[in-house]
């Protein structure tokens, strides 16, 4: 069973057991515009919740991506290196950024549900 949570900085995390997949929302992708480059973290590195873990660059802005949950990175989306535009095309599925082993599932309580996130962006 996969649960999806959102942050106020427009990241999402899909949780399946101990694993989490992280990406940015359609709203964020639209705000950024055409994405030109993604700086992903190294595999094996751990980040705390809220720490800046990646950078997404578009023509007009460069956005920090903050970790929705603490954990260790075990996989990154290498196809974004050649085609960063995948994030614009499909931010919720093929445009995933990285996967982590979640350290503390309690932290997920700090995040928003889909309903709450939609309220935040006013839909």
């Amino acid at each position, binding site marked *: 069973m996969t649960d999806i949570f959102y942050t106020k900085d427009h990241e999402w995390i899909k949780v399946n057991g101990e694993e989490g997949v992280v990406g940015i929302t359609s709203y964020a992708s639209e705000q950024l515009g055409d994405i030109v480059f993604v700086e992903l973290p190294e595999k094996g590195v751990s980040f705390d919740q809220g720490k800046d873990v990646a950078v997404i*660059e*578009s023509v*007009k*802005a*460069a956005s*920090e991506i903050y970790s929705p949950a603490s954990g260790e990175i075990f996989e990154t989306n290498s196809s974004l290196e050649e085609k960063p535009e995948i994030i614009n095309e499909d931010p919720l599925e093929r445009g995933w950024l990285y996967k982590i082993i979640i350290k503390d599932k309690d932290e997920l309580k700090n995040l928003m549900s889909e309903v709450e996130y939609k309220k935040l962006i006013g839909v």
Partner: protein
Amino acid sequence: MRYLPLTNDDREDMKKAIGISDINEMFTNVPKEVLLDPKFNLPSHKTEMEVGKILSEIANKNLNSNQVPFFLGAGAYKHHIPATVDHIIQRSEFLTSYTPYQPEISQGTLQYLFEFQTQVSLITGMDVSNASMYDGSTSTAEAVSMAKRITKRNKVILSPTLHPQYAEVIKTLISSNEDEVDYKFSEEFEIDKLISKIDDSVSCVVVQNPDFFGSCHSLEQLAEYTHSKGALLIVVVNEIISLGIMKSPGEMGADIVACEGQSLGNPLNFGGPYIGLMSTKDKYVRQLPGRIVGETIDMNGEKGFVLTLATREQHIRREKATSNICTNSGLCSLAFTIHLSLLGEMGFKKLSKLNHEAAIKLYNKIKTLEGFEVKNNSFFNEFTVKLPINASVFVEKMAEKGILAGVPVSRLTNQDGDFSNLLLVASSEINSDFDRDDFIKLAKEVCYE
């Protein structure tokens, strides 16, 4: 006033259109006390003639490098600038245009910068270059900053023969912690000593080549060792003409190259404006600060140029910017690229050889001078001479006799050490045999009469 087009009638019409009768009505937000006719202790306006007279008088109080035999270097060099260069940079469309943020009406600037970037990449032996920075010293400091970001390490090792003012600039801009920058100015450049300082806390090693004292070095071994420890090698070039007959920094293993480009297209100008060059490998391009021009296509598929990779700059990333710099040297980079286009491959190499030969000829003559010792085993167009007397005194006395003989090393450093008799002497294609003979004759007079 000749630069102000509005007539008094214009001003009246405009005030009516705005709905005011007094200019100060537009300054209502300004505190009254501050606006109350502040007294400026300054003269009133002057005609072109008057201004010309005042400034010419001041200019004439300087001994300029065209008037006497000239042998100064130490980071700024005198070369002949072809008449074409100064003529083109004064064209309206180059002189009075703005930064190319609207690319459709700035293809002239963008294309020459693209050509400039190519030239800089080629002569430094690197993959990519930016569109220039303020000068060699800030380029070097930015290179250090870049290396720290890439390696995520803090320690910086500066070669002891790096230009002392460059080291000062790096220390000022880079670290709040003195220990992070390792620099002790010294005449001795020993690769082994430098290598012994490199460990895995080091982000970069900065080496000037030819160095401050004029000596030329092979850096392959240093590069290899630096890389083996996960650090980056930054090579600094102050006299860009040297790249005509030396192995390029890229060829020797540099990761980032920072240069002073003043020698091409730009006069001495008492120290500014100059032009900093910066080039690096493809893999580091997104960490390269400053403006960068890239090629692209327009809506019709036609080739064009734009400023690109701008998201690293402060006006977009604000707090997270990679650098504080948001300008390049504009017209100075145009002068550089025009001069290098005029020279071309053949001209650049020949000019380089001429400079080297000028130095060799002077070296051969100085060798015959009793009490004078050239300290270098190798040099391009600048070398260090140990004099029988204090170098600052020597230079003053030579100036009185009508020759600008060199730069005393002690002028640039207050570090302990026996530098007081050392003189940096630079040669270039502008020196004639007469100049060199003059140097020898007057040097003898100053020291021995």
